[in-house]
């Protein structure tokens, strides 16, 4: 699957926690295609992060909290990607419901594996479970549930306390110290700026945790 074109592959984006809050969003880029996953009124949805009006990238930051609203002319979009806030619509566009639907954002693939959120440019293709394989998919679900707490960043290479198991899938490198920590490093997908890479350290439910510094502002 690694040889498939980037547009047809799943890429790890973030944790479901990152998208739990109202208007929380996380962005990335696959090849030339900017993508965004966003919580809109409780629904987590994914689109191409490009306004259908005049093609500006909507959310420029890798993550944050704010409505899905284009910075150029203020078009805002609902959970179906349909523009619902169009400044000057009565005088300049006069778009009714059907016209708005035709200008909906283009959806992107979105899938979860436990608390891990993946995105894909293509809408069609193998499911995330098919791409990962059922066994690995199930293991990731188990792991992500077993390490619910974010904590102090841990660098496996510097940690002498024990053996680390390493797993690589898609753009995601996991380092697991059983019972102690799970480090997730998501590399920026092909074509993406390094600012779209992310690292988070997760701890088991019983471990002491620190303040969560990874959640969107």
């Amino acid at each position, binding site marked *: 699957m690694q040889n498939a074109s980037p547009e047809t592959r799943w890429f790890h984006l973030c944790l479901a926690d990152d998208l739990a809050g109202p208007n929380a969003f996380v962005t990335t880029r696959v090849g030339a295609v900017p993508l965004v996953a966003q919580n809109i009124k409780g629904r987590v949805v994914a689109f191409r992060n490009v306004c259908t009006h005049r093609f*500006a990238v909507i959310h420029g930051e890798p993550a944050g909290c704010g409505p899905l609203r284009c910075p150029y002319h203020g078009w805002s979009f609902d959970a179906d990607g349909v523009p619902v806030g169009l400044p000057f619509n009565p005088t300049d566009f006069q778009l009714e419901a059907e016209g708005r639907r035709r*200008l909906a954002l283009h959806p992107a693939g979105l899938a979860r594996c436990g608390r891990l959120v993946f995105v894909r440019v293509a809408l069609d293709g193998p499911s995330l479970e098919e791409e990962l394989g059922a066994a690995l998919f199930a293991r990731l679900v188990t792991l992500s549930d077993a390490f619910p707490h974010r904590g102090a960043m841990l660098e496996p290479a510097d940690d002498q306390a024990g053996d680390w198991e390493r797993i690589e899938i898609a753009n995601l490198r996991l380092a697991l110290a059983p019972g102690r920590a799970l480090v997730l490093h998501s590399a920026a997908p092909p074509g993406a700026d390094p600012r779209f890479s992310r690292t988070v350290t997760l701890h088991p439910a019983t471990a002491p945790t620190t303040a969560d510094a990874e959640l969107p502002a």
Partner: protein
Amino acid sequence: MSAHPVQSIVPETGAFLPHSHFWTGEAFAQERERVFGRCWLYMGVFEDTNVLTAEMAGLRFELRRQGEAMDGVCRDGEQVRPLQIDRCGALVFARVAQDGGPTLADHLAPYGERLATMSANCLNPQAPVGIAFQANWKALVENTMDDFHGSTVHPDTIHPAVHPDWQSHLVTERHGANSDSRWLLADGTAGWWAKLDAKLRMRRFAEEPFYRHTFIFPNFYLATFYGATVIPHRVDPVAPDSSVLRWQLFLPTTRLETAREQAFHRSTATYLIQSAGTVIAEDCPVCEAVQQGRPGIADLPHITGIYGRRERRILDFHQAMLRQLGETE
């Protein structure tokens, strides 16, 4: 081209530039040959040096003035071609020498006379400014002809400077490749200019409380305030995904004799240059956001954008580009 009810246009493929024209080397090379290698281009206003230079899409233009005579060349690597040079008032234009083609007056129509009148205010020049954008030059042209991003992109600068009911007062003229918009200044802004006028006794080409924006294809626009200050702008292509916006403030005064008058003029010019720079700095991120966004929907032919009532000038520009690129000679 299908028309939405009354106001907006969703263009069909072929009625606007393909998205790839905003980032490919092939399109850039075609524009270099057929647009910047052929069209009349704004070069500047001659000052004491009697020399003007410009670089657009890898072409270097060099002009010199000797008395009333002007000559120049266009350098394209090893190739050197002579220029045809002409003026519109104080504004100097040039193009690669060629047989046929429009005269400068034809190219500027119907704004030649108005531009010449406004250019009489190209006095008291300030240092030219160039601001780099990581965006194709056409994204900047689209931005400058976009008449309604003020409230979102310039909420604290342009937006409060124009009349609160700007929609009713905005007047846009469209004449194919060239166009003009004028905005009624807010009372407070017009009052600020009036006070400035009282101190500087500005030369005014018209008694108009407007911000006026006159666009000349392919990459020139003249911005004016209060019928006095003129700011020629030119968008210079540097690479498929980068460009430089070059502009120069002229603050024409009839009072520049005493040290006090000179100091006031200097501080006012500095303030206006800083203000203009702030506005341009606000435009830069959205132009760059468009540059980043276009490739992301280029594979989706149904996403063609939509052009509202105040965005027709942009579509006019696209169509002028298509015509120019389609010309084989």
